[in-house]
């Protein structure tokens, strides 16, 4: 067992550190500032072109085929340099890799990985949140195309995306989770209406809703087979629950180090309760970084798509919300009129127990699939 770097890992780390000295764009945090999104695509492309994004993915899609643990190094160094975290889209890549045929993989994955194409994920609907299989968006065959009609909501990055991985019902006769298919739908077309959806902390660029009214998608853009939308969605959400697919361990480490810098610069300003909240945020953030090392080590011999993502999602949520509480504790008193960034960090953290499957759903999955408790 070794938590430390092997020589080639240390070399990679130093190379990334040197690269960041020059290329850190110093963007504000995605969770609190819309300005982040105007620089996000350039950051993704720059990180990729520098050789530091998607490094553990196969070379056939633009990755470098490095061992799984290299993503830990990327997250560590981005956080230590105060750089933005890795763009969060590993779950899309894992889902498409697992379910799509060679043609779809070859057409879409390189653009996702290198950051030239931006994607969003059209899953949730106003009446299909936790109960995703009840979704009503439909895809009706019309010659070489499908015609998409429906309403997607809580869609991250929908305003800026060129592509949407949309789940739609193609078969109304079979059991509800068997009639769903997945498509790569071009967003820039008539029949796609996007509306920003401001989040509770005021940012407008992350969340959105999308209305499809006769949007068209070629049959060749179906991802997986007809009716494979549900298993594809399950693969994607299981990875969307993993902090290492999201780069979130690094995001929290950066937030915590910002808070530590703030408090240690002026410790007399802060009382026992604030210090205690920050100490817990440090402990939780450290835990998550170490937990990611464990999970990625378990993948050194290959990926298994299992229920452990629900464990990771709950740990990630507890971490983000502990960091959020520390941010509130330390920044709350200064919110009136001044810089309210820390209150925004706190407010954003409430979404973590909902996005990618609520904490209640994760607990159901841990109970049934890991603890093997009887069906409720």
């Amino acid at each position, binding site marked *: *067992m070794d*938590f430390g770097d092997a020589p080639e890992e240390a070399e990679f780390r130093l190379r990334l550190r040197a690269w960041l000295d020059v290329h850190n764009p110093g963007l504000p945090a995605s969770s609190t500032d819309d300005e982040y999104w105007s620089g996000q695509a350039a950051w993704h492309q720059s990180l990729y072109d520098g050789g530091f994004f998607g490094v553990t993915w196969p070379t056939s899609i633009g990755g470098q085929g490095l061992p799984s643990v290299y993503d830990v190094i990327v997250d560590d160094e981005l956080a230590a340099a105060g750089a933005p975290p890795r763009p969060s889209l590993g779950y899309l890549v894992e889902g498409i890799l697992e379910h799509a045929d060679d043609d779809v993989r070859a057409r879409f994955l390189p653009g996702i990985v290198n950051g030239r194409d931006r994607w969003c994920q059209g899953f949730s609907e106003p009446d299909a949140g936790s109960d995703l299989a009840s979704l009503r968006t439909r895809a009706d065959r019309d010659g070489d195309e499908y015609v998409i009609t429906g309403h997607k909501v809580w869609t991250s990055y929908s305003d800026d995306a060129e592509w949407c991985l949309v789940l739609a019902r193609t078969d109304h006769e079979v059991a509800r989770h068997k009639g769903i298919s997945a498509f790569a739908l071009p967003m820039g077309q008539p029949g796609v209406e996007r509306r920003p959806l401001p989040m509770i902390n005021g940012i407008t660029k992350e969340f959105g809703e999308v209305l499809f009214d006769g949007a068209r998608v070629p049959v060749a853009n179906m991802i997986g087979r007809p009716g494979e939308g549900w298993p594809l969605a399950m693969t994607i959400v299981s990875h969307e629950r993993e902090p290492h697919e999201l780069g979130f361990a690094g995001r929290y480490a950066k937030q915590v180090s910002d808070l530590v810098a703030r408090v240690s610069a002026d410790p007399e300003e*802060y009382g026992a309760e604030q210090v205690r909240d920050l100490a817990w945020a*440090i402990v939780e953030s450290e835990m998550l970084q170490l937990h990611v090392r464990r999970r990625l080590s378990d993948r050194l011999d290959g990926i298994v798509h299992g229920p452990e993502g629900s464990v990771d999602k709950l*740990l990630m949520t507890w971490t983000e919300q502990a960091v959020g509480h520390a941010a509130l504790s330390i920044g709350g008193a200064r919110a009136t009129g001044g810089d309210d960034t820390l209150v925004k960090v706190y407010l954003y953290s409430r979404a973590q127990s909902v996005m990618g499957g609520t904490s209640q759903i994760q607990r*159901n999955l841990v109970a049934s699939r890991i603890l093997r408790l*009887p069906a409720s």
Partner: protein
Amino acid sequence: MDVRLSSEQQALRDSVAQVVGRLGPGTVRDLDDTERCAKLDAAVAASGWRELRVPLEGRAPLASGVESAVVAEELGRGLADTPFLGPTLAAELRRLAGAPPSDATETVAFAGTLAAAATMASGTPPGTVAPDARGATTALVLVPDGPRHVLASVPLGPSHPGTDLTRPGAVVEPGPAVPVEGPDLRPLTDDDLSTWTALGLSLACADLVGVMRGAVDLAVGYACDRRQFDRPIGSFQAVQHLLADAYVGMEGSRSVALHAAWSVDALRPDDALVAAAVAKAYCARAARTVCETAIQVHGGIGNTWECLAHVFLRRALLSTAVLGGVGASLDRVVAHHGIGGRRGLR
């Protein structure tokens, strides 16, 4: 970077689990079975697990903190009523001080709160105790020697159960401390004591992880068997979510505990100590909640002496107290990061 257990470490884990499964207590009543307890003790003594921190050659221990933690976790999971933490920490003090290994079972004396090893300038301070003292007649104490410390040995009274029913402690008898002798003695530096504390915290964390695993297994088993409203209670979401949170808390704890154990020998002493403090804060908080959950899931039965759930909780309380629980561990984290504030945490 590969934080999986090596095949040797997995084999060690499996052999500890096998011994504890065969000879450890399966019920509360088993705790009174002195014959079983003696067999377990003999098996653990013969295994050499208590000597993993004895120097192999020069100063380096026979095995790293990870191997000791692997043993501690399995002993905790099976509520093994045989000494391990005490003798291992005594062996580590001797290793760091260049003292020869002890012939007899030996443990370490602590100040009454168990938050730190006992330091003895003259005579035994009242309330000095030795946890995990079954079979031990002596305990090591620290004696100031200028800015450093040397080791001395103090006699112990008979051991008797305290809060933890599986690891009885003993009171240090009044009387002079006998200096530990040896040809290669060196005073213990602050770095030595940081390493020792890091090992102690790491083993306590590993024990807590084991206790949590055992408590979750016990509660899950019960939730599958116990029926109310014509259904197993484990089919109710309210119960499922308690158990899911317990499992997740245990998994997070395992990640920090593994790192702490690795850090003992791989990082500088100060860094190993803060890694251990992070782990202890996390594991101690999680363990209390997990053990309380195990009692809650057992309902009325969980509040009776016959149910093993309280034995897990009691063991967790001792491991939590050793070298400081949540508050003391957060204090170390706060000091390390220089975020002390007006009054620290107190």
